[in-house]
C-alpha cells in the first residue's frame, strides 16, 4: 500500500515539475514591435514614475532633513533621523509587533484558511453560504472592522461587557491592557484576513485533478496521506503566494489598528505604519516619518525579493 502511495507521490511530483518548468520568452524585439512599445509604454511608465518611483525618491530625500512639512526642506541633518529612529523604544516595539503579526499570519491564519478551504472546496449543500460568511470580514472596510471590534472589546458598554455580565463577572478591558492589547489586535487581524487566503486556497484546490485523489483512494490512502502527498504538493504555489501576501499585508497593517487602539496603550500595539503616522505625520516631523518609511521600504524590498527568489522561483 505504501509503495502505491509513493508511486502516486512521484506522479504528483512530476506533475508539479511539468507545470512549473520555466518558460523563456526569447523572442527578439524586432522593428515590427517598436511602434507598439513607443505607443503603449510611456503612459504606464509615466504613471509608475509619478506615483511610485518619485514618492520613494522624495521620502529618501526628506528622511535626511528636519522638516515640518511646510515649505521646502532646508535643515539638513544627515543620518540623524535614522539614529533617533533606532534608539526610539516605540519604533523597536513597532518592529517587534510587525514581526509578531507576520508570524501569527503565517502560523495561524494561513493554516486556518487552508483547513476551512479543504472543508469548503467540496461540493456540498450550503457550501456557498459558508464561503460567503467566512469571506465577509475581508469585504468589510478595515476602519469599520476596527470600530466594530473596538465595541466588541469594550468592557463597559460593549459585547464583552454583556457577555461577562451575563455570567456575573467583571469584564476585562483588553484594549487597555499593555500586555494583552496586541493579542486582541492579532485576533482581529486573523479574523479579518483569513477569508482572503481561504478563497485563494479554494481556487487552488478546485484546480487539482480529481483523478489523482481518486487514485489515492484506490491505493487506500488515509485522509491525512491524501492531504500530505497529493493536495499539499499540488497546492504548493498557492500556499507560497498566500504566505507572500500575508507577509506584505503584515508589513502594511494600519487601518484596522488605528480605530481599534491607535497604537496604544503605551505604544504596545504600534505597527511600523501606525508609528510612521503617529510620530511622523501627526507630530509634523515629516523628515523623521520619512526615515521610518525608508526603513519600511527596505524591509519590504528585501523580504519580497528574497522570498520570490528563494521560495517562489519556480512559480
Amino acid at each position, binding site marked *: 500500500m505504501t509503495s502505491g502511495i509513493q508511486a502516486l507521490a512521484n506522479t504528483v511530483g512530476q506533475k508539479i515539475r511539468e507545470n512549473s518548468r520555466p518558460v523563456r520568452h526569447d523572442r527578439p524585439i524586432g522593428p515590427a514591435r517598436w511602434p507598439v512599445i513607443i505607443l503603449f509604454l510611456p503612459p504606464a511608465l509615466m504613471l509608475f514614475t509619478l506615483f511610485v518611483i518619485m514618492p520613494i525618491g522624495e521620502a529618501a530625500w526628506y528622511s535626511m532633513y528636519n522638516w515640518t512639512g511646510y515649505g521646502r526642506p532646508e535643515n539638513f541633518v544627515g543620518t540623524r533621523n535614522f539614529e533617533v529612529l533606532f534608539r526610539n523604544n516605540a519604533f523597536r516595539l513597532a518592529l517587534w509587533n510587525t514581526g509578531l503579526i507576520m508570524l501569527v499570519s503565517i502560523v495561524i491564519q494561513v493554516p486556518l484558511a487552508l483547513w476551512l478551504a479543504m472543508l469548503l472546496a467540496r461540493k456540498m449543500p450550503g457550501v456557498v453560504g459558508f464561503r460567503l460568511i467566512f469571506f465577509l470580514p475581508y469585504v468589510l472596510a478595515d476602519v469599520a472592522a476596527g470600530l466594530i471590534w473596538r465595541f466588541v472589546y469594550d468592557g463597559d458598554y460593549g459585547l464583552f461587557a454583556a457577555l461577562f455580565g451575563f455570567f456575573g463577572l467583571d469584564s476585562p478591558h483588553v484594549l487597555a491592557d499593555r500586555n494583552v492589547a496586541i493579542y486582541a489586535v492579532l485576533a482581529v487581524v486573523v479574523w479579518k484576513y483569513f477569508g482572503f487566503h481561504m478563497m485563494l486556497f479554494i481556487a487552488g484546490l478546485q484546480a487539482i485533478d480529481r483523478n489523482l485523489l481518486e487514485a489515492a483512494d484506490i491505493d487506500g490512502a488515509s485522509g491525512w496521506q491524501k492531504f500530505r502527498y497529493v493536495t499539499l504538493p499540488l497546492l504548493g504555489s498557492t500556499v507560497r503566494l498566500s504566505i507572500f501576501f500575508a507577509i506584505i499585508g503584515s508589513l502594511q497593517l494600519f487601518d484596522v489598528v488605528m480605530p481599534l487602539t491607535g497604537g496604544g496603550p*503605551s505604544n504596545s500595539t504600534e505597527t511600523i505604519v501606525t508609528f510612521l503616522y503617529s510620530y511622523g505625520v501627526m*507630530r509634523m516631523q515629516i523628515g523623521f516619518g520619512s526615515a521610518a518609511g525608508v526603513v519600511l521600504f527596505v524591509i519590504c524590498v528585501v523580504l519580497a525579493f528574497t522570498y520570490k527568489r528563494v521560495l517562489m522561483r519556480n512559480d
Partner: protein
Amino acid sequence: MTLRFDKRTLLASTGFALASLMTVGAASAQTEVRWMHIEANAAYLAVWESLVEQYNAENPDVNVTMTFLENEAFKARLPTLLQSDAAPHLFYSWGGGVLRAQAETGQLMDLTDAMMENDGEWANSYTPASLGGLTFDDRIWAVPYQMGTVSFFYNRDIFDDVGINSEDLTDWESFLDAVEQIKDAGYVPIAVGGGERWPVHFYWSYLAMRIGGQEVVDNAKTGAGEGFRHPAFVRTGEELARLGALDPFQPGYLAATWPQTLGYFGDGNAAMILSFQNTHPQQANNAADGQGLSQDQLGRFPFPSVEGGDGLVTDTLGGLDGWAVSAGAPPETLDFLKWFTNEENQRIMAQNRMIIPVAVGAEDGVEDPLMLESALQLGASTWHQNYFDQDFGPSLGRVINDISVEIVSDNMSPEQSVQMLEDEFMLQ
C-alpha cells in the same frame, strides 16, 4: 473590454458636462469662502449653520461653505491642505506653538494691518488677553474666538454620599485624600480619557504650573535657564505618579476616548473629571440617556495648589482659540470673520452654552452657571497658560501627552520622563 457609445449616451454625457460647466460658471460669480471646522456637536453646528445662512443671505456676492474634518484628521491633513490649491480660507486654531509654526512657514495671512485699521477698531472689539495670546512678535495671526479653562467637575451626589466638601479640596494633599476616600466608598474617583492621551496631560500641565510657576514653565518652552532640568519637572512626575498609585481612574481608562469618558462621567459612574468649561452640555451630549447629570448634580472647583510650589491656585490652564486665515484667502474671509465674531454673534453662541466669549460686551451671554464660574475664574486669572500640547508645538506637545500617560500608569519614572522631554527639546 470594449466600450460602446450610442448617440443617446453621447448626447446625454455632453449635456451633463455642459450643465456642470454652467453651474461652475454661475458659482464663480460669487466669491467662495471655504471654512474648515472640526465641530462634531450637532447642536453647536446648527447655530453656526444658521449664522452662515444669515450671512450668505445678507451678502449675495459671497458664499461661505463649511467643510468638516474630524479633529485628529484635521491636524494630520492641514499641512498638506494649506500648501495646495484647495487650502481652506479659514480654519480652527488652538494658538500656541502650532500656530506659530504655521505662521513661520508663510502659509498664514498676517492679520495685523486689517485689524489695526481705523485706530484698531476691529482689534479693540476683543479682550486684550485673547488678542495678545494670538500675537507673536507684534503680529496678529488669528482672530480670537473663545477662551476656556480646564477645571475639576464633580458629581454632587457622590461627594455628598462620601462626605466630601469640594471647598476643602484646595491643596493637592487633601485632594489625594479625597480620592482615597471616594475609592474606599466603592466609587470610581476620576474619569479620564487615557486612550487619547491629551486628557491625562491636563494633570501633568497643572502640576507643572502649580509646582514650577510661570517662570519655570516659560523657561522650559524657550530652553532658558534650566529648561526641563528644573527640579520642578521631576516633582511634577512624582506627584502624578502618586495620583496614579491610588488607581483613581475608571477600569480600562488607558483605552478610553474622550467622548466615552464624558459619557462615563455623565452616566454618574465617576466622581470627578478634569475637563473643559463646557463640560455640562458635553457630558449630557455623551451620556447614555442623552441627559447626563443635571445642573444641580454638578459642581466645579479649580485644580488644587501644591504645597511648596511656586504657582498660584488662580493660575489657569486652558484654551485660547481663534480662526486662522490662509495666505491666499479672498478679502471677504476677513469680512465674514469680523461679523462672525462680533459682539452680537458671540453673545448668541454664549447663550447656547458654546463658548466663553472674547468679544468685549458679549460676556453677559454666558448664562450657564458652571460656565459663568469658569468665565469668572478666567477673568481673575493671574496667569493664563495655553494647552501644553499646543503651546509647546506639535512634537514636544505630544511627548508631554505620552509621558503623562506613562507616568500615571506606572510605566515610566519621573526621571525618565524628564530625560525624554530634554531629548525631544534638543531635536527641535
